[in-house]
């Protein structure tokens, strides 16, 4: 074998050599390329890795932001509850003042030097009441008188009034033609608009312009918000000013009650708190966009309904007297006393019960004599709801007017739904009280005749 190879193999060896050389070349090339490829794979590995890292970071940031927002919301809510409680008590005090002033006014003729002072007291009480109303609105208890309203009309009216007082501000409007109707408390939404106008004006002491827009939108248009809007149609009201704007820190706090950047004594810091409460109570949402030095935009989304607005007349203007018998139920002595006197002034026979139990005790034997009951919602022993049910058991036709320092909240709405005849919010004036009473008593008369 060896011999043979030796003999005729120069050629063969050369050939083998060639093949080996080729193999080496092939292996070298392959190795080189493989190394390159490994490098790109490693590079890709790190790219993918850092991409994932970036994503994790981003998610973490998002989670933190959401946590912060929910903390903020919780804080607002607890402050709201507190504010609501204070407002409730405060309202009862105002009720007493209002009532006493009313009574004195009735006995004072207009020439008397105290007449104007009494009027002023009444006016101040009304202002105080407005303040507590805002607080109540903020506390989300306030669902006042809900009816279908046209936001466009309200924007036109309020901005018209407002512009006459602030000539240095030019107002522009872009109102959608076929804006959906909303279901809301006219007075409260009016307050919301006015609060926003006033804030905007305060942000533009040297004047500027104000752009008011309305628009139909859906929950789809409200994506990318920190809240999840309920599905459905919304009416968007947006207000953009060219004022001083605000930084992020300020923006985070503006809806807190008592937060103000305008210094103590100038601002109460309740404006936006009540705006927030009102919007929330209406099932709506509010957003703010601003940059320091570049103006601010507030956006309010209110749930839309498909209805047309209808006109409603105001029945609370004049004092209307009557002679019927009224059972007044209230656990607060001031309210009971003042109410008693007011009713008497209006000509009514009055029975006063200072608790739920007492109310039933009085009502039972005199059911035929008592024409209507004015019933406080919140009482310690037996609350308005229970008293209501008991009276209705005794007399299914009993006429009952609910009264409360809170506005129509869940409880009151519940009773109203069960067939109660009306609701009156404390503190009430003689005019309002007389109007509500007549409305209810005359309804009965209609039915009987």
């Amino acid at each position: 074998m060896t011999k043979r190879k030796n003999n005729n193999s120069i050629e063969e060896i050369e050939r083998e050599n060639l093949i080996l050389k080729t193999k080496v070349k092939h292996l070298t090339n392959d190795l080189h390329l493989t190394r390159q490829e490994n490098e790109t794979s490693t590079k890709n590995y790190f790219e993918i890795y850092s991409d994932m890292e970036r994503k994790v970071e981003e998610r973490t940031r998002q989670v933190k932001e959401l946590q912060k927002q929910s903390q903020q919301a919780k804080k607002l809510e607890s402050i709201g509850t507190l504010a609501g409680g204070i407002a409730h008590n405060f309202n009862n005090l105002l009720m007493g003042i209002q009532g006493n002033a009313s009574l004195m006014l009735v006995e004072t003729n207009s020439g008397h030097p105290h007449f104007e002072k009494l009027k002023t007291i009444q006016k101040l009480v009304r202002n105080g009441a407005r303040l507590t109303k805002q607080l109540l609105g903020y506390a989300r208890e306030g669902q006042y008188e809900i009816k279908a309203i046209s936001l466009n009309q309200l924007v036109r009216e309020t901005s018209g009034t407002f512009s006459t007082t602030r000539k240095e501000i030019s107002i522009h409007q872009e109102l959608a033609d076929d804006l959906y109707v909303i279901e809301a408390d006219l007075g409260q939404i009016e307050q919301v608009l006015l609060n926003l106008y006033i804030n905007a004006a305060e942000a533009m002491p040297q004047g500027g312009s104000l752009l008011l827009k309305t628009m139909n939108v859906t929950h789809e248009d409200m994506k990318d918000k920190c809240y999840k809007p309920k599905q459905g149609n919304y009416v968007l009201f947006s207000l953009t000013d060219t004022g001083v704007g605000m930084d992020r820190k300020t923006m985070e706090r503006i809806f807190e009650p008592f937060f103000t950047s305008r210094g103590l004594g100038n601002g109460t810091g309740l404006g936006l708190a009540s705006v927030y409460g009102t919007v929330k109570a209406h099932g709506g949402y509010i957003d703010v966009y601003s940059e320091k030095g570049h103006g601010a935009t507030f956006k309010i989304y209110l749930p839309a309904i498909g209805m047309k607005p209808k006109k409603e007349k105001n029945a609370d203007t004049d004092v209307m007297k009557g002679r019927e018998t009224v059972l007044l139920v209230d656990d607060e002595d001031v309210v009971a006393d003042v109410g008693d006197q007011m009713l008497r002034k209006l000509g009514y026979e009055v029975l006063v019960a200072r608790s739920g139990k007492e109310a039933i005790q009085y009502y039972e034997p005199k059911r035929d004599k008592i024409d209507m009951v004015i019933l406080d919602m919140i009482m310690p022993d037996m609350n308005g709801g229970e008293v209501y049910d008991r009276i209705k058991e005794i007399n299914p036709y009993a006429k009952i007017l609910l009264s409360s320092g809170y506005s129509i909240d869940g409880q009151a709405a519940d009773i109203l739904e069960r067939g109660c005849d009306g609701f009156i919010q404390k503190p009430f004036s003689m005019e309002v009280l007389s109007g509500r009473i007549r409305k209810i008593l005359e309804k009965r008369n209609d039915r009987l005749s």
Partner: protein
Amino acid sequence: MALEEERYEKISKIIELVDRSEISSIQSVVSGVIDVINDPQSSAKDLKDIIEIDPPLTARVLKVANSAYYYSLRKISEIQHAVIWIGFDVVKEIALSQKVCEVFDQDETISGYSGSSLWKHSIAVALLGKMICRREFGERGENAYAAGLLHDIGIIVENQFLENDFIDILKKAEHEKKNLSVSEYEALGYTHTDIGKMLTDHWSFPEELVVAIGNHHNPDKAPQEFSKFASTLYIADYLCQERGIGYSDAPFCDPGIFRKCLKRLDVKGYALDLIVKDMEKEISMMEDQGLFQYDKAKKQ
């Protein structure tokens, strides 16, 4: 020139049909991967996005990536893992071949031809073309791989849109002992290389690919700048047919052209022998792993 024009018209009509057929559904993924191959800036993320837009493809790529052929040390359940564990370039190849093979799903055998035999041929040409580039030229050979997979796509088009003619063409080539191109030219006035060229041009593939596919039976006619690439494809096509791997559309080819190509590339026969041997090993390994069995999987 009139003849040229007529031919152009005819093929254009076929391409219109292709545009409305399933064949065009491979275009976006295939062009996408080819773009990734030819763009040095592109990353694994680009590739991942291209593949993942096509869930069945993603599933098949992962299946192939997990097969013993690629001996990954881990189970691969995401494209990005595949990139990491078996390599960016390998994933490009798998994606390309898995997508292209979707259109080779014709199983019936006529005169030695079937979709799957042509597919085996195409994979072999792709692999061999790539290996020649790598081992002989020290180049990555990814375009050669793509060209190999697609060079005979014109045959698939004929099979689908000129069905009766195509059967006649196959039979005629068999009886008269001619290359398929000759029989095609006699019947149609053009060949599968013309269709392949126009189709890949229509799909905006890189010119190198378009030219090589259009000249894979006559690489001498390719313009100078693409001559090396076209010749490589020719050599790979020639050798696979010589070794009888899969379908052969040119059993009577001209050794003169082959020799010219070897000279042009300065590649020696014994060097090619070494490469072909390795390629055959790879192919039989793939076959053992069932990697040619896409058809069955699809029909389940």
